């Protein structure tokens, strides 16, 4: 009915569209074939002990659906690490990655359409999901595994109202400072092991006339979150893990002495014109720089130190050598003294919405050291707090460093506080006030504003 479009231009356009469409469908088909062949030729993965799944009965032909915020390119190693499980049990794992996971999972749970398994990245969200009444408790086999392979603090984060729901999956370490090992070697700087040494190092670099630190807190709607990580890290270091827990649960006020001290300590770095913002401008430029871009200044040589989580490794161009003797590496943001090792970090938790045997088997598989090591071999930029994870299986030096930090017996792991505070604070007032603070608002006003915003 739109047939009489005879002009040559529209014919060209039509021909163009058809050929492009054809080309895409060809690539699509080609892609599928490539997938199949790589799946069938891969024999290295069938090396796990299949007997451990026999307790769940015959699962052949069953399907487990997984819904997560982990998308490309991190999803490929995830899927690959499930292959041995699929081969052993005959279960198909249907993987759905979606960046809007955090909002969509609530919609789906409420509409009665939850996946079998969801990877929940925040204890606060986990609690909300459990409150929908659709989530099911972790099976006993998984709880046993978690007791065996994970620390008590990790198990506590997967527990809601005394019931254990979710085993930890991956983890990331936020207490890291990125630097250039080459620059450190050339200029004779050493990696600090206490907060005082960090300060001395900063002063030393500042004395040469260059700005030691670079930072950026721009992140769209979430602008300000990198400051919250700074504050949490210093809260943990200056007042200790117990005070940190109280602070997160609002048992001590947000504008109390401990909190104010942490903000001021961060201010000594981020609001210090001598220290920031290497290669980017003055203090205020922190608010206008995206967190993805800020650390790249280290490569330019205009900045020496950048505090950001382990996942920041992916931001450097693919050819950058990230290693202890490379262009870029990171050191552990030191504790107050060399003996205390507080670690700020995050991670995902495996929450199930079904208790069919194949779902239980999959949960069990994910909580084993077997899976952690399989995943380690398949991926880069990933670690787990699983104590059975062998550091040498990790391919990437930053992952090895993160795993060492997590597995250190004296490490005191604490989950990112802004992920656990009420949403009105953790993903609103904290971010916004932190941005205002960088833009010139004083510390007292900032902490008072956040305290006032705390839901009663």
């Amino acid at each position, binding site marked *: *009915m*739109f047939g009489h*479009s005879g002009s040559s*231009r*529209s014919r060209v*356009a*039509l021909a*163009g*569209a058809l050929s*492009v*469409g054809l080309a*895409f*469908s060809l*690539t*699509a088909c080609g*892609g*599928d074939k*490539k*997938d199949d062949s790589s799946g069938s030729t891969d024999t290295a993965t069938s090396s796990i002990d299949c007997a451990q799944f026999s307790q769940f009965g015959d699962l052949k032909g069953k399907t487990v659906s997984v*819904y997560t*915020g*982990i*998308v*490309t*390119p*991190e*999803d*490929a190693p995830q899927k690959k690490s499930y292959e041995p499980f699929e081969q052993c049990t005959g279960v198909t794992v*249907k*993987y*759905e*990655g*979606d*960046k*809007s*996971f955090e909002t*969509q999972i609530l*919609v*789906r749970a*409420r*509409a*009665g*359409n939850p*996946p079998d398994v969801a990877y929940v990245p925040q204890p606060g969200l986990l609690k909300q999901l459990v409150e929908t009444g659709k989530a099911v408790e972790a099976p006993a086999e998984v709880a046993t595994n978690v007791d065996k392979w994970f620390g008590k603090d990790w198990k506590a984060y997967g527990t809601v109202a005394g019931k254990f729901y979710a085993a930890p999956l991956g983890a990331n370490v936020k207490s890291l400072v990125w630097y250039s090992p080459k620059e450190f070697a050339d200029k004779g700087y050493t990696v600090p092991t206490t907060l005082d040494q960090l300060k001395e190092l900063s002063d030393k670099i500042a004395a040469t006339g260059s700005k030691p630190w670079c930072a950026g807190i721009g*992140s769209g709607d979430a602008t300000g979150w990198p400051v919250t990580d700074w504050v949490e890290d210093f809260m943990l270091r200056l007042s200790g893990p117990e005070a940190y827990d109280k602070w997160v649960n609002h048992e001590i006020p947000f504008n109390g002495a401990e909190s104010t001290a942490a903000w001021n300590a961060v201010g000594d770095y981020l609001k210090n014109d001598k220290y920031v913002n290497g290669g980017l401008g003055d203090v205020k430029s922190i608010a206008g720089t995206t967190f*993805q*871009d800020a650390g*790249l200044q280290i490569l330019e040589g205009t900045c020496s130190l950048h505090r950001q989580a382990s*996942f920041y490794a*992916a*931001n450097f*161009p*693919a050819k950058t050598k990230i290693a202890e003797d490379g262009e870029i590496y990171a050191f552990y943001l030191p504790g107050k003294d060399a003996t205390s090792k507080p670690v700020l970090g995050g991670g995902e938790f495996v929450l199930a919405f079904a208790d069919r045997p194949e779902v239980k088997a999959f949960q069990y598989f994910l909580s084993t050291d077997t899976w952690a090591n399989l995943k380690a071999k398949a991926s880069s930029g990933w670690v787990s707090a699983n104590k059975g994870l062998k550091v040498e299986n990790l391919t990437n030096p930053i992952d090895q460093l993160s795993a060492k930090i997590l597995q250190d017996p004296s490490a005191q792991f604490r989950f990112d506080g802004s992920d656990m505070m009420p949403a009105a604070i953790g993903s609103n007032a904290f971010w916004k006030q932190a941005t205002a603070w960088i833009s010139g608002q004083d510390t007292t006003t900032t902490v008072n504003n956040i305290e006032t915003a705390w839901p009663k």
Partner: protein
Amino acid sequence: MTAAVPIVTEPDLEAPPESTAAVAKKKLSSPMASVAALIIAVLWTIPTFGLFLSSFRPEAAIKRTGWWTFFTDPQMTLDNYRAVFDDETGVNLGNFFINSLVICIPSVLIPLALASLAAYAFAWINFRGKNFLFLAIFALQIVPLQVTLIPLLTIFVKVDISGTYWALWLAHSTFALPLAIYLLHNFMREIPAGLIEAARVDGAGHVAIFFRVMLPLLTPALAAFGIFQFLWVWNDLLVALVFVGGGDDVAPLTLQLANLTGTRGTAWHLLASGTFVSIIVPVTVFLLLQRYFVRGLLAGSVKG
């Protein structure tokens, strides 16, 4: 078919007094207006042009400098386009391209078919409660689709079609129908009643009138609404997210485009090439049907 051809009269020999349309046409084609149009066109094209250049720049260049540095330091690469079609990086847009087409075509055809039939009934058939029903459909346009998401999803879950194409086809059709019926109804009302009567005298029933008189005349309106609906469905992310989630089998291109930047937004340099891949189809559709677009936009708003 012959009944459908409008009678064309010879133009009068005397110059008619200038109509308002002619005056407007004259003013709009003055040099000043052309300059203004040109400036607006350039301003509107610059961001797209910058995106286009960015899509060919290497990753490090995109991340560190703006697209305008291309002119002082021209570096070209097809890596970004390769990356969005690459299975290794896990972003194969090709599969999703097909998904998007499979979602779009029925989501355009179903509401068009239903709405043109409904519009015919509202325009030319008398039945009880017609005005009330029409008012109800008209009023439905003001219901934002967001409020229907969870209830609709609950229904889809109950009849077990969530996560399939059916959920999307039905949802998009439902959301499109009120506006489609309203637009097509207004267009049909303007067709002179004499034409319908003449067809009826010749022995045509409703079916014959609809297919042989109405449809040929409706082409611009159908095309205009078709473009609207196609662009809307092609660019839709929210409805697809809610009803099918992130599964590779049914998710549209927009979903993969949203995921393209990676879990923590570290691969945002691929956005430029990704958007240009997704833009191809809507641009082609628009170029093919643009002359209907303007005509159809005026449908129901201007007489004559």
